C-alpha cells in the first residue's frame, strides 16, 4: 500500500496542465475523465427523457379506454422509449464508466485514442438529437417498434430517413468507442497487468467492444436496406419484388441479440467488481467468470431467431434455436453461482452499492428464469409478443443494467469527487427503487400469461387491475430516480462534508488500481505506469 501511495506523489511532477478553462473544456476535451463525465451526464439526461416516455405509456395504460394520446402517438412512444433508453441511456452510461475506469484500472494515463474519444461522444449527441427531432416531423416519430420491422416501418412519414441516419451516427459512435477501448486495453496496460489479472469490468468491456464492432455494421446495413427499399425501389424486404420481410428480422436479430448482451456484459463486470469489495473476499472463480463472459458473447451470435419463433421457420430451425438458446443458461448460471459463492462466508456490509448489486443478482436471476421459459419454442408460441416478454426483458434491463449503473455511480462517485454521498438518502433511493420496480414489472408477468399482447394502447377490461398496479409502480419508480440526481449533485458540491480516504471502501485497493489513487482523482493519473498491481484473485 505505502509503496503505491508513494508512487502517485511521483505523478504530481507530470501534473503540469489541467483542464481547459470555462465552458470550452467540455466541448474540446480529450481527457478520459471529462469524456466519461460527459457520457454519464448525457446518459442520465436521456434516462429521464426515455423515462418520461415510459410514464406517458403507463399513464395511458392506467385505465382501459383512450384518455391521453392517440394510438399512433402511443406507438411512437413505445418505439422512442426503447431507442432512447438503449442507444441514449444504457449504452452511453456504460461507455461513460469505461472511459472513467478502464485507464485507471489498467494503469494507463488515458484512452489510446483521445481525439476519437471526443468525436465519438459528440457523434452520439448528434445521433440522439436527430432521433429526437423526428418527434416533431410530419407523420410523427417512428411508430413501428424499436425493431423497425418492414413493411410497417416503411409506412413511417417524413421521419424515416432521419431515424435511419440517426442509427448510422449512433453506430459510428459506438464502433469508434469500441475500437478505442480495445486499443487501450491491448496496448496501454501497466507492465505487470497481464490479461488474466485485469479487473472483470475491463474484461467484460473488452468482450463487449468486440460485440459492438461485429454487430453495429449489421444493423447499419439492415436500416440502409430499408432506406433503399423506401426511396430507391429495391425490394430486399418486399415479396412482390422477390424479397422477404422476414429477412429483415433475421438481420435485425443477428444484431439485436448480441446488442442486449452489450447492455448486460458490462453490468456483470461492475457487479463482479462491487460484490467482492463489500464481501471483503476475492471474487470467486475469476477465470471461470472470464470464460463464462466469452461463452455468453459467442452464444449471442448463434441464437438470434429465438426472437422470431412465430415467423414460420422450418421445424429444424425452431429446434436448433431452442437448443442453442437454452445453452446460454449454463454460463449465465455459472456467473450467478460465482457471485453467490463470493458472498458465502464473506464479511459483508450493505452500503448502497452493495444493496443495488444484491438486488441485481436476485432480480436478474428472475429475468433469467423467464428467459429460460421462453427458450422453449412451443411454450414461446404462447409467451411471444405478450406482456410476459415485456416483464422478462425489463427485469434484465431495469433492476439489472440500470440498478448496476446506479450501484457503480454510488461506488465510484466518492473516488471521482473526493466527497461522500449521503448514505441515508441513497439507501432510501435504493429501497424505493427496489420495491417500486417490482410493483411495476412483476404484475406484467400475470398480464402476459393472461393474454395481454404487448404494444397495445388499450386493453380488455380483465387486464385493468394489474395494469393499474403496474402504472402506480412506474410513477413511484420514475419519481424516485430524481433522488439520484439530487444525491449526485449534492455529492459533487461537497456531499456530507466527510473527506473520503484514497481507498474509500475498506480494502478496496486490494481489488483494483483506481483505489490506490488520491481522492478526488487528479486530472491526470498514471503518467508513469504503476509497478505493483493488486493481486487479490490469485
Amino acid at each position, binding site marked *: 500500500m505505502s509503496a503505491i501511495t508513494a508512487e502517485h506523489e511521483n505523478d504530481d511532477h507530470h501534473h503540469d496542465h489541467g483542464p481547459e478553462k470555462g465552458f470550452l473544456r467540455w466541448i474540446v476535451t480529450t481527457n478520459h475523465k471529462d469524456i466519461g463525465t460527459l457520457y454519464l451526464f448525457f446518459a442520465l439526461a436521456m434516462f429521464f427523457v426515455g423515462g418520461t416516455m415510459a410514464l406517458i405509456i403507463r399513464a395511458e395504460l392506467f385505465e*382501459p*379506454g*383512450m*384518455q391521453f394520446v*392517440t*394510438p399512433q402517438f402511443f*406507438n411512437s412512444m413505445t418505439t422512442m422509449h426503447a431507442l432512447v433508453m438503449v442507444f441514449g441511456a444504457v449504452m452511453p452510461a456504460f461507455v461513460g464508466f469505461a472511459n472513467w475506469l478502464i485507464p485507471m484500472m489498467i494503469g494507463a494515463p488515458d484512452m489510446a485514442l483521445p481525439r476519437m474519444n471526443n468525436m465519438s461522444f459528440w457523434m452520439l449527441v448528434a445521433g440522439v438529437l436527430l432521433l429526437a427531432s423526428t418527434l416533431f416531423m410530419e*407523420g410523427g416519430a417512428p*411508430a413501428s417498434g424499436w425493431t423497425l*420491422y418492414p*413493411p*410497417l416501418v416503411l409506412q413511417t*412519414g417524413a421521419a424515416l430517413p432521419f431515424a435511419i441516419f440517426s442509427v448510422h451516427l449512433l453506430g459510428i459512435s459506438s464502433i469508434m468507442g469500441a475500437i478505442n477501448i480495445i486499443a487501450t486495453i491491448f496496448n496501454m496496460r501497466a507492465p505487470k497487468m497481464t490479461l488474466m489479472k485485469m479487473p472483470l469490468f475491463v474484461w467484460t468491456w473488452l468482450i463487449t467492444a468486440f460485440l459492438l464492432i461485429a454487430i453495429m455494421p449489421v444493423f447499419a446495413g439492415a436500416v440502409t436496406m430499408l432506406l433503399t427499399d423506401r426511396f430507391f425501389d429495391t425490394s430486399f424486404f418486399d*415479396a*412482390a419484388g422477390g424479397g422477404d420481410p422476414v429477412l429483415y428480422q433475421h438481420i435485425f436479430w443477428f444484431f439485436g441479440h448480441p446488442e442486449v448482451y452489450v447492455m448486460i456484459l458490462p453490468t456483470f463486470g461492475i457487479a463482479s467488481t462491487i460484490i467482492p469489495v463489500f*464481501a471483503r473476499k*476475492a471474487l470467486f472463480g*475469476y477465470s471461470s467468470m472470464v470464460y463464462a463472459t466469452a461463452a455468453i458473447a459467442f452464444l449471442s451470435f448463434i441464437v438470434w431467431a429465438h426472437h422470431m419463433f*412465430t*415467423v*414460420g421457420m422450418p*421445424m429444424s430451425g425452431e*429446434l436448433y434455436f*431452442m*437448443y442453442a438458446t*437454452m445453452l446460454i*443458461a*449454463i454460463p449465465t*448460471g*455459472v456467473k*450467478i*453461482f460465482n457471485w453467490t459463492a463470493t458472498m*458465502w*462466508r*464473506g*464479511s*459483508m*456490509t*450493505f452500503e448502497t452499492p452493495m444493496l443495488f448489486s*444484491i438486488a441485481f*443478482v*436476485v432480480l436478474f436471476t428472475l429475468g433469467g*428464469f*423467464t428467459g429460460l421459459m421462453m427458450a*422453449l419454442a*412451443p*411454450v414461446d*408460441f*404462447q409467451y411471444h*409478443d*405478450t406482456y410476459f416478454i415485456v416483464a422478462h426483458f425489463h427485469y434484465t434491463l431495469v433492476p439489472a443494467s440500470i440498478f448496476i449503473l446506479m450501484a457503480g455511480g454510488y461506488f465510484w462517485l466518492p473516488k471521482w469527487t473526493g466527497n461522500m454521498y449521503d448514505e441515508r438518502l441513497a439507501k432510501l433511493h435504493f429501497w424505493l427503487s427496489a420495491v417500486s420496480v417490482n410493483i411495476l414489472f*412483476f404484475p406484467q408477468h400475470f398480464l402476459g400469461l*393472461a*393474454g395481454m*399482447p404487448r*404494444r*397495445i394502447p388499450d*386493453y*380488455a*377490461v380483465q387486464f385493468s387491475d394489474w395494469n393499474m398496479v403496474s402504472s402506480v409502480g412506474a410513477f413511484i419508480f420514475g419519481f424516485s430516480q430524481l433522488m439520484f440526481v439530487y444525491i449526485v449533485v449534492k455529492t459533487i458540491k461537497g456531499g456530507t462534508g466527510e473527506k473520503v480516504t484514497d481507498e474509500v471502501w475498506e480494502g478496496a485497493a486490494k481489488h483494483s488500481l483506481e483505489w490506490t489513487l488520491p481522492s478526488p482523482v487528479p486530472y491526470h493519473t498514471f503518467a508513469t505506469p504503476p509497478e505493483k498491481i493488486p493481486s487479490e484473485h490469485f
Partner: protein
Amino acid sequence: MKTKQLFAGLFLMALSLGTAQADYTLNLMEGVTSISRDVYGLHMLVLWVCVFIGVGVFGVMFYSIYFHRKSRGYKAANFHESTKVEIIWTVIPTVILILLVIPATRVMIEMDDVADSEMTIKVTGWQWKWEYEYLDTGIHFFSSLDEASNKARQLNSGIDPRTVANYLLEVDKPLVVPVNTKIRFLFTAADVIHSWWVPDLGWKKDAIPGFVNDAWTSVEKAGTYRGQCTELCGKDHGFMPIVVIAMEKPDYEKWVVEQKGLAVENASAAVKEWTKEDLVAKGEKVYANNCASCHMPDGAGLAGTFPAITASAVVTGDISAQVDLMLNGKGMMPAFGQMLDPVDFAAVSTFIRNGLGNSVGDAIQPSAVKALQAAVPEVVYDDDE
C-alpha cells in the same frame, strides 16, 4: 434491520409467485386443445424447475447475507477458486436442460404436423381486420372490431369500457369452426405483418405479406374463444381482435348452409338497381367500420397523416377517380377492392359523396363496382410450403 426488510420484500415476491400457481387467472390458460394442454404442461414444468433452482440459490444467498456479515463479527474466509464446484454447477444445469428439452421437442414436432387435416381456413391479416376464407366450402368474410368497442375506444369517447360487453375482444363476424375436427390454418397478410393468436388454442402464428404460414388445431370443447393480433401492425394494432366460435358439428353444418344462403343473397343484391338513399344509408355503417378509424367519424381526417373526406378534391371530383383510388389504395390507404363486396363498396363510395358535409349528388351502382373489381388483378401469393 436492512436485511430484514430485504427478506420481507423477497418473501412478498415469493408469495406473489405462489399465488401465480394458486389463482388460475394469473397463470397461462390450459386451453381447449391437446396442444394447448401440452404447452401448459411444459409451462408448469419449467416454472417449477425455476422455482426449485430459485429457492436453492436465493436460500444460500440469504443465509449468507444474514449470517456472514461484518456486523455479526463474521470474519471473511479466504477461498476464491474451486474447479470441482465449477464443474458441478456446470454439469447439473446441463442435465436439467436436457430433461427440459426432451418434452419440448416432442410438443414441437406434434405442433408442426399439419398432415391429415379435415378442412382448411385461410386467414389474411389486413390493417386492421382479419379475412377468413374456408377453402373447402368457399365461405368468405371479413372480421373486424365490433361497433360498440370501436365507439368506446375513441380518444375521450366518454364511454366507460367496463360497460361494453367484451370490450376490444368482440368482432362483427366471428370465425366459426366445428369441434373435434383437425383444421389447417394458412396465414398470410395483405399489407404488413400481423400475428394471429387465440390463447385457448395454444399458439400464435405470424401472417406475413407474400408468404404463407400454416398451423393446425382441433378444438375439443364448444365455446367462444377470444384473442388478438400480436404483431405490431400500425396504429390500430390493438383493435383487431379475433373471435373463434367452436360449434358442435350439426350446428356448424347449419351455419355453413346459412352462410351459403347469405352469399346468394349478396350476389343478387349486387346485381339489382339501388336507390341513392339506400346506398347512403348502408354506406354510413360501412364507413364507420372501415374508414372512420383513419378519416375520423366526422370525415375531418387527421392533419398531416390522414386526409379529410369532407370537401376533399378526390371525393367531390370525378367519381371514377375516387373509386379507382379506393379500389387500388395509395400509400397507407389500403386497397379496398378486395376487402369490400360490391354492395358495401358502392354504398360507401356513394355515402362519402353525399354525406360528411359533401353533397355531390351522384351515386355508383354495385353492378358497376363489380365490373371494376373484376378488372383488378388478384394478388398472387408465393406459397413456399
